[in-house]
């Protein structure tokens, strides 16, 4: 085992070791339950950064990246499955986000969970999650990826339901798990289909053979589409895309650091990562790509429209996450893989920042999440305010912060690749995003204070273990776009991702990206997205207030105008406020109808023989045998069932044996 292989192994061993240790002795560490877990993750982060540096900057492992087999799961026959891992440029990009946000969330949690008696459990779960997520990005075959896929689902279940005493938390956890399970079915079927058609599950081999098989017609186009859609179903579940998006907002029942880590920066990106990873497969099916783009952009606008009216600060962010994930899928669908990964990275940082910031706010106002009961916090929580403002500007897409570059890249690529409708919807979403983010900022930080008077005097800035991570996250949120995305179309990210998506670009017929033309189409597109972003921000500022003390800028909120607008758009408002009734619809379709079907089948099992028997009984009575009414005895019914089944089997053998 080489040093690098050892390091990759350590990358997995540290978090799982931390999990085991914390689970075993964490309870006895009392206040310091975090010490093992955080230590393990910091070490993980250091190793990860070393690997990232080697991969992306030194190009130490070549274009293909580092691949190795840790051990063979089943060492014989063609039934071989290995525990093999890979670190390539795509993995490295994910490692940056996962490890950095993960580490900062761990640090943040020290303060956030300081008063929770179950904190040792929390840190154990966090480590378990980090292990699963790292396994997910490092896995080099589909079965291992699937195992990690289930594991992140499990750790997410544990973390959402962390406060299991709260009914809503337990229910949300269950919902998340079960909805994910629906997606997993698709993913599992997709993996089975790959096994049958390609004959292996190892990524390098699968992706090498897929184009050849498609070309030679062994895999028909419709099969390829089916394959891609099955895998995509898995992504839809994990990344909460329409129509499986319903679990994510509920998942906000978990502690806020969890929301930041899992439901913004890491786990929900797993679907995007998987589609990007399997790009050679997806590009073989244009119709699947089209559908992915459609689902993505629809989710984006749907979620943005819901975020408009939500009052719970975390729910706004949750819907915003859905919407941004939708962007990423739209990018994948239009073939802009690099842009999708770029947005994944920037979004991971600024959304992690926003969530942690919201956690700081909630912590500051003593566990209040309703934005109507906040306001005027900018003065009392200056660090939280500033960092969240950076995050908000970043997500709104105002240059030169991170969000602008990645979002513009997506929209630009959509236009250029012939998906003008995706661009058009996307630009509307950009407008809405800017608006609802500054609505959030206005309601929370500016405007008059609606904080509970009892709490008001005790509102305070959060402890350092919470603000430092905020500050640290604000830096990449601000500069990552420039660092990776400038010059537009030829930035670092393009260089990094080029080897990963080379084949896909070839299939799609993309050549080298042309240099950015300020006065050409590029300039127009960039200008358009900046314009709508600014428009959205300004509108929100007018309605919900704004204040920049240094520049002397300030605006008062105008609740009357908001009220009037709301009244005029009442149906839209109601729809948005009730999340377009998706939960009710789901309840109706899946829970009620599913229950009905299950009950029906159960009834079938119990009563079919009974029914027949009762019919016979009725016949018997009428034929005058004078049988009295007797309670139904089961054994004879069972025996009759067995006898009839025996007859069916015998007849079956007779019929089949005649061949």
């Amino acid at each position, binding site marked *: 085992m080489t040093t690098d292989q050892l390091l990759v192994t350590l990358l997995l061993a540290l978090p799982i070791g931390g999990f085991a240790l914390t689970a075993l002795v964490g309870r006895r560490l009392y206040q310091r339950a975090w010490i093992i877990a955080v230590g393990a993750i910091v070490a993980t982060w250091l190793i990860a950064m070393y690997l990232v540096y080697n991969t992306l900057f030194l190009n130490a492992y070549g274009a293909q990246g580092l691949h190795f087999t840790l051990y063979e799961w089943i060492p014989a026959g063609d039934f071989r499955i290995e525990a093999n891992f890979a670190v390539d440029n795509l993995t490295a990009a994910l490692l940056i986000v996962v490890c950095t946000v993960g580490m900062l969330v761990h640090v943040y949690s020290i303060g956030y969970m300081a008063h929770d008696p179950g904190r040792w459990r929390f840190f154990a779960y966090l480590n378990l999650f980090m292990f699963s997520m790292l396994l997910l990005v490092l896995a080099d075959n589909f079965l291992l990826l699937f195992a990690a896929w289930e594991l992140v689902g499990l750790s997410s279940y544990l973390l959402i339901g962390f406060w299991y005493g709260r009914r809503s938390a337990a229910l949300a956890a269950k919902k998340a798990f079960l909805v994910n399970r629906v997606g997993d079915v698709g993913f599992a079927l997709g993996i089975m289909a790959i096994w049958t058609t390609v004959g292996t599950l190892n990524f390098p081999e699968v992706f090498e053979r897929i184009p050849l098989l498609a070309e030679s017609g062994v895999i028909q186009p419709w099969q390829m589409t089916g394959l891609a859609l099955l895998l995509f179903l898995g992504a839809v579940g994990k990344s909460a895309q329409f129509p499986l998006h319903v679990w994510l907002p509920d998942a906000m029942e978990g502690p806020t650091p969890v929301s930041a880590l899992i439901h913004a920066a890491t786990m929900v990106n797993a679907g995007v990562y998987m589609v990007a990873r399997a790009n050679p497969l997806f590009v073989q099916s244009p119709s699947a790509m089209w559908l992915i783009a459609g689902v993505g952009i629809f989710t984006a606008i749907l979620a943005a429209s819901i975020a408009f009216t939500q009052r719970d600060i975390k729910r706004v962010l949750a819907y915003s996450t859905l919407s941004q994930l939708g962007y990423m899928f739209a990018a994948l669908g239009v073939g802009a893989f690099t842009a999708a990964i770029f947005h994944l990275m920037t979004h991971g940082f600024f959304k992690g920042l926003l969530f942690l910031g919201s956690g700081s706010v909630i912590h500051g106002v003593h566990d209040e999440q309703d934005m109507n009961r906040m306001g005027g916090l900018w003065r009392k929580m200056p660090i939280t305010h500033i960092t969240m403002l950076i995050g908000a500007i970043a997500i709104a897409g105002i240059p030169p912060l991170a969000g602008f570059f990645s979002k513009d890249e997506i929209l630009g690529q959509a236009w250029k690749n012939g998906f003008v409708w995706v661009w058009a919807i996307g630009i509307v979403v950009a407008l809405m995003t800017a608006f609802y983010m500054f609505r959030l900022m206005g309601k929370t930080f500016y405007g008059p204070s609606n904080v509970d008077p009892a709490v008001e005097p005790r509102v305070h800035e959060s402890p350092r273990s919470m603000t430092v991570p905020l500050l640290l996250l604000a830096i990449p949120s601000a500069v990552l776009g420039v660092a990776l995305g400038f010059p537009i179309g030829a930035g670092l990210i393009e260089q990094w991702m080029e080897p990963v998506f080379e084949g896909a670009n070839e299939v799609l017929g993309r050549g080298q990206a042309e240099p950015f033309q300020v006065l050409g189409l590029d300039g127009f597109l960039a200008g358009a997205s900046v314009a709508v972003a600014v428009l959205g921000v300004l509108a929100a500022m007018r309605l919900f207030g704004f204040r920049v003390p240094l520049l002397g800028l300030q605006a008062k909120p105008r609740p009357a105008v908001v009220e009037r607008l709301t009244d005029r758009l009442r149906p839209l408002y109601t729809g948005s406020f009730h999340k377009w009734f998706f939960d009710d619809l789901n309840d109706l379709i899946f829970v009620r109808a599913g229950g009905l079907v299950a009950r029906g089948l159960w009834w079938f099992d119990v009563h079919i023989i009974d029914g027949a028997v009762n019919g016979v009984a009725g016949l018997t009575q009428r034929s005058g045998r004078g049988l009295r009414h*007797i309670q139904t005895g089961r054994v004879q019914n069972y025996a*009759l069932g067995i006898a009839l089944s025996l*007859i069916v089997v015998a007849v079956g053998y007779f019929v089949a044996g005649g061949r």
Partner: protein
Amino acid sequence: MALPPTVPYFDIAWDDLLFLTFGGLMLAAALGVVLGRNIIRSGLAMILSFAALAGIYALLGAPLVAAAQVLIYIGAISVLVLFAIMLTQSKSGPASLVFHHQAWAAALAAIVLALLLVSMVAGAEWPRAVAERVHTATGDVARLLFDEFVLPFEVVSVLLLAAVIGGVFLAKREDTDVPETEAGARQVTLGSEPGGASGRAASGIASATIVAAEDLGRRP
């Protein structure tokens, strides 16, 4: 005195006559077992059916099996069954309702199964069978039992031992008073106190058990 080769007037072989007699008797008695309204008569019909079967075994040239049939079935199993019938008769006499209300369906199933079996037998060819009956030497049977079939023979003894150990436990009367039953404790939830509630709830079944025990004790 030598018998004529065939039965006078009917012109069938003596063996065939025996076959028809025993076979008919066996089936008729078997029908008596399943159709009889009085369970005790059913038990007696079963003995008759077994006896006829023993005759068929003898006819088939397996005297040892015939003897065992008489000893084991008529001598042991039937007596056991009759005892059990006595023990479980309620005082009101035989149940007035013999058949379950699905008897029609049962009859239909049995007839279909019979059709299947008979059609199979009629159409079957047995590669190893010969046209003529062969006879069994009792000595060979004994030798086989301790040679080729020694494992089954030993296992049977273990099986009987197991049946006796468990059977004695299940059938023997208990002196303990309050039965602990889940049926009785149905309504009792987790939190209730162990002694009182579950005992009270079970008292119905308890009394039934005691009555049953007393009742059994009074019987000879």
